């Protein structure tokens, strides 16, 4: 009961802030609502007993990436936040994309509902499930899911190098 109340309250707030993120006309306000949204998603993770994920969500998204967003917004528009000139700009493309994402989510939900429940990660190794999932997550990530983990880190490395190459200023060789 308490969990249901918590979930629906959080879900309503997350959706509400999400709508505000895209409907507010001031970009900095929009970024602020995004921060609120990310913090609420972290709270949602806590209610799912995924504390590690919740803390990482705050650290990486709310505390890191969105700070950079804000930094860029402030650097690009030093005078006064530009108000979006045309609110219906690219509306059709946005709707199409949203539809595709919705379809994908519904597909995943239907598929995973038909599958049997997965055992808790690390259960086979005899690790304690109660009292914290950080250690389990570490074990599982570096044993069973080692290859996806390494592939993801390679992907990030490639992205980083790509960004540096793109942003590098050409130095004239004398």
């Amino acid at each position, binding site marked *: 009961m308490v969990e249901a109340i918590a979930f629906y309250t959080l879900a309503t707030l997350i959706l509400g802030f999400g709508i505000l993120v895209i409907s507010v006309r*001031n970009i*900095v*306000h929009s970024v*602020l609502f995004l*921060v609120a949204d990310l*913090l609420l998603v972290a709270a949602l993770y806590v209610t799912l007993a995924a*504390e*590690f994920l919740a*803390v*990482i969500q*705050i*650290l990486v998204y*709310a*505390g*890191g990436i969105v*700070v*950079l967003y*804000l*930094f860029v917004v*402030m*650097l690009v528009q*030093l005078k*006064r936040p530009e108000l979006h000139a045309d609110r219906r700009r690219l509306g059709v493309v946005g709707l199409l994309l949203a539809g595709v994402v919705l379809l994908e989510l519904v597909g995943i939900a239907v598929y995973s509902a038909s599958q049997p429940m997965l055992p808790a990660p690390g259960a086979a190794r005899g690790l304690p499930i109660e*009292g*914290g999932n*950080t250690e389990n997550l570490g074990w599982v990530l570096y044993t069973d899911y080692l290859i996806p983990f390494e592939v993801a880190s390679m992907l990030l490395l490639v992205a980083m190098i790509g960004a540096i190459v793109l942003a590098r200023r050409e130095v004239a060789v004398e």
Partner: protein
Amino acid sequence: MVDTFVIPLLKIVVVLNAVLVAVTYMVLLERKVIAWVQSRLGPMRVGPYGVLQPIADAVKLILKEDITPVKADKWVFTLAPILGLVPALVVFSVIPFGADPLYRITDINVGLLFVVSVTSIGVYGIILAGWASNSKYPLLASLRASAQLISYEIAVTMTLVSMIVTAGTLSLVGIVEAQQEAGLWFGFIQPAAFVLVFIGGLAETNRAPFDMPEAEQELTGGFHTEYSGMRFALFFLAEYANMIVVSSVVTILFWGGWLRPFPNIEVLAFLDFVPSWVWFLAKAFVFLYIFLWIRATLPRYRYDQLMRLGWKVLIPIAIGNLVVTGIVKILV
């Protein structure tokens, strides 16, 4: 009911008030220490040796007119000081002040990460204050602040990972207990990590010599130029509360938290008559004093020097430290 609500609430009230009182007296201590360093007396008028100065300051700040610039973004302008202070206070919920569970509000299994992530939210206070003021110096200050905080956060977090590897746990209580088992404070095992975290802590609390975001001579006070009265005081409270957070975390990670010196040597067992929370507060106070000492001693860094130190010195050392820690952990 009593155990799940009343007692934690009482603890929260006690800790919050203790932190806020400590913060106001930190301001007095800072003025006194800097005065002594410069062969002055410091505040002397209010009460004997000026001990009532913080109360006079608080009354003054509350009574002052609270001005919001006409061209400021009102909502964000109001929100920014709150966003700066709240994370600094929230962190104290996981700080263990003593050995007994009575001396902490809670112990969560991701304690250290919780501290890092919540403090990383505090930067919004500074960035938004500068932006919402709609004034050029505060904006420059908040651009500097966001660049500075993000750069130093990488080095500090990377170093904290090596401390997690050393301790084998993320819980702050667990880290202190690991030091008891090891019979040695981690500061002796990881001296490089201690120096890195402390320098990073100086930079993240915007303290001298890294107080670029509020450099008075260049930016007329920096991000809080347009703030007055109690809202300005909230920024001040946040800065000093963050100093206490850094001192507490450094004490817990490197200098044994509430443990007495040489926790495993029986001959020194008589030291146990000092309560554990006294040890903790005494150690934390030493680091608070070092903060003031550094401010009184070192000149401010230039902005490019500061970024160079962060990216070209601290981050490589942090990565090297992590690699060495991992290798030692596997071999030993």
